[in-house]
């Protein structure tokens, strides 16, 4: 995972509420065996609608309860692969929010007027260290869990976090190394 640095980007607006994960990444694409390349299938059905326009910017702005429905991790994978680094929304579904930060995507919850102002503005700046979003004529601060902030700023995924405890892990393994079962010896 890349460390999250302050981004300045144009905005991609998808001003709909209750966008569910089956719209973000339809189930027919869950059968793939790769972890990458999901961006191509993002909003697969909606992308066929007339007038659909979702440029590959770094910031997505959207409505209320974004990412509801099935807990599939393929949805954030698709958004990340498409190029997004931060999602600004009025609110997020719980599991989706936590799945986002696992692949380095920053979910930002803001009040409706701010969300609308950002959607209408030309470009936006997201500063995670300061927990601030800035745009032409406005700015807003957002909340984030301290530990998640630390992880994102340093580009640490869950595995990297656990591996920071490598000493405890190695000590445990040494203490508990015992006869079996050893799968490689079968």
């Amino acid at each position: 995972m890349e460390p999250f640095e302050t981004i300045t980007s144009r905005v991609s607006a998808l001003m709909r509420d209750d966008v569910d994960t089956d719209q973000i990444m339809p189930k027919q694409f869950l059968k793939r065996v790769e972890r990458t390349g999901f961006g191509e299938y993002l909003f697969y059905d909606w992308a066929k609608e007339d007038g659909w326009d979702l440029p590959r910017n770094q910031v997505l702005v959207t409505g209320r309860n974004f990412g509801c429905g099935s807990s599939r991790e393929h949805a954030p994978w698709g958004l990340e692969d498409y190029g997004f680094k931060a999602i600004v929304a009025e609110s997020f579904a719980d599991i989706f929010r936590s799945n986002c930060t696992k692949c380095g995507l920053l979910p930002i919850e803001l009040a409706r007027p701010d969300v609308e102002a950002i959607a209408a503005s030309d470009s936006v700046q997201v500063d995670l260290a300061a927990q601030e979003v800035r745009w032409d004529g406005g700015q807003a601060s957002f909340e984030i869990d301290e530990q998640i902030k630390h992880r994102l700023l340093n580009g640490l995924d869950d595995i990297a976090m656990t591996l920071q405890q490598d000493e405890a892990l190695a000590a445990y393994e040494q203490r508990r190394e015992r006869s079996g079962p050893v799968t490689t010896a079968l």
Partner: protein
Amino acid sequence: MPTTLFDKIWAAHEVAPGLLYVDLHLVHEVTSPQAFDGLRMAGRRVRRPDRTLATADHNTPTDGTPVAARIKDELSRIQVQTLEKNCEEFGVPVYSLGSERQGIVHVIGPNLGVTQPGMTIVCGDSHTATHGAFGSLAFGIGTSEVEHVLATQTLVQKKPKSMLIRYEGELGFGVTAKDLILHTIGQMGTDGATGYVVEFAGPVIEGLSMEGRMTICNMTIEGGGRAGMIAPDDTTFEFVKGRPAAPQGADFDEAVKQWRTLRTDEGAEFDKVIVIDASRISPQVTWGTAPDMVTDVASAVPQPQSEGHERALHYMGLEAGTPIEQITLDRVFIGSCTNSRIGDLRAAAEVVKGRKVAPTVSAMVVPGSQEVKAQAEAEGLDEIFRAAGFDWRVAGCSMCLGMNPDTLSPGERCASTSNRNFEGRQGRGGRTHLVSPQMAAAAAIEGRFVDIRTWS
């Protein structure tokens, strides 16, 4: 302070608060590809290949297809081949299609002896709870957790609550472990154990074979439980003894001494306790589209209590009030990680011996692993099934989940020894009734459900 079996195993595996060490990680083709890909992208390796074991089961055809390259379905072929490639690259032992040790992941673990008392065992599959029958803590995980375990051999976990389900009394004639667990789920509902690790205990449990105990723990998840477990005893040790991965000689005796300490102490507290009178349980048959929609074989399809029930009856094509014994069947499936072990096949074969499958029924037996298949064949069970008109297949998940060529057609009604009767689980539009192997075998002969206790 007195502690539970679950407390003991949990405490012994906490590397740091909330970080649990994993003794055995079982891997299969469906939930692992992205986990391996994630490792590759981050330049990580598998920390303990010697504590990891892979097999192909969900997607594999059961018609004797010899190697992955010959699997007709493209997606299945790619998944199985990807598993083989990943295991080779990361040094993980794998029993894929064509291996004499290939089979359902929850059947091969115990049979190889890699499942042992006191361990923590995880797998990207919800029926991992099966292994709890050995007095281990075993549960299913998601794909990103699979990646986490591959890379670190640990799991970030909050400790679940504990529940004790104690069975009083004795099981009646013709009543099996499957009936015990189906009845229990019927009592507590599909979310009755949500958030809990369940310990099953009581004289009935102590009297069960390891196969029966695995059937019980396997279906804990159908009651919402995170894991099911049973304290290990002589039955457990006898089962483990002599298996390829079991400790040998003096090491085994030493291990048993330690395993004997894996018991819930007198006076230990559970967050919840349920007591069930086992002597009142009859052979069970599910009538709906969730495992808790279940009733006694001697009764009738119940009156719907909710919209969900009505929908279920409609899907199942059943009328309330119809005696269960009048329900006729098109298919019978004996298999799955719930009931495909040698003991299950022996029990079914005994019912089938010298009889013929009804002409209106197409019936199949799918051994849980290639080793179970070989053993059954050595005992002549395959002959008994074939002579009766059963299709004798090669190991795999088969018709448990409709992900491989074995599926029900829309509207087909099946007596199945598997664990889930959800809409479309065995194939789109298929109608599943969950039962024990004996009940499934008798249903195949008669073409309808019969009460195994009075049937002759």
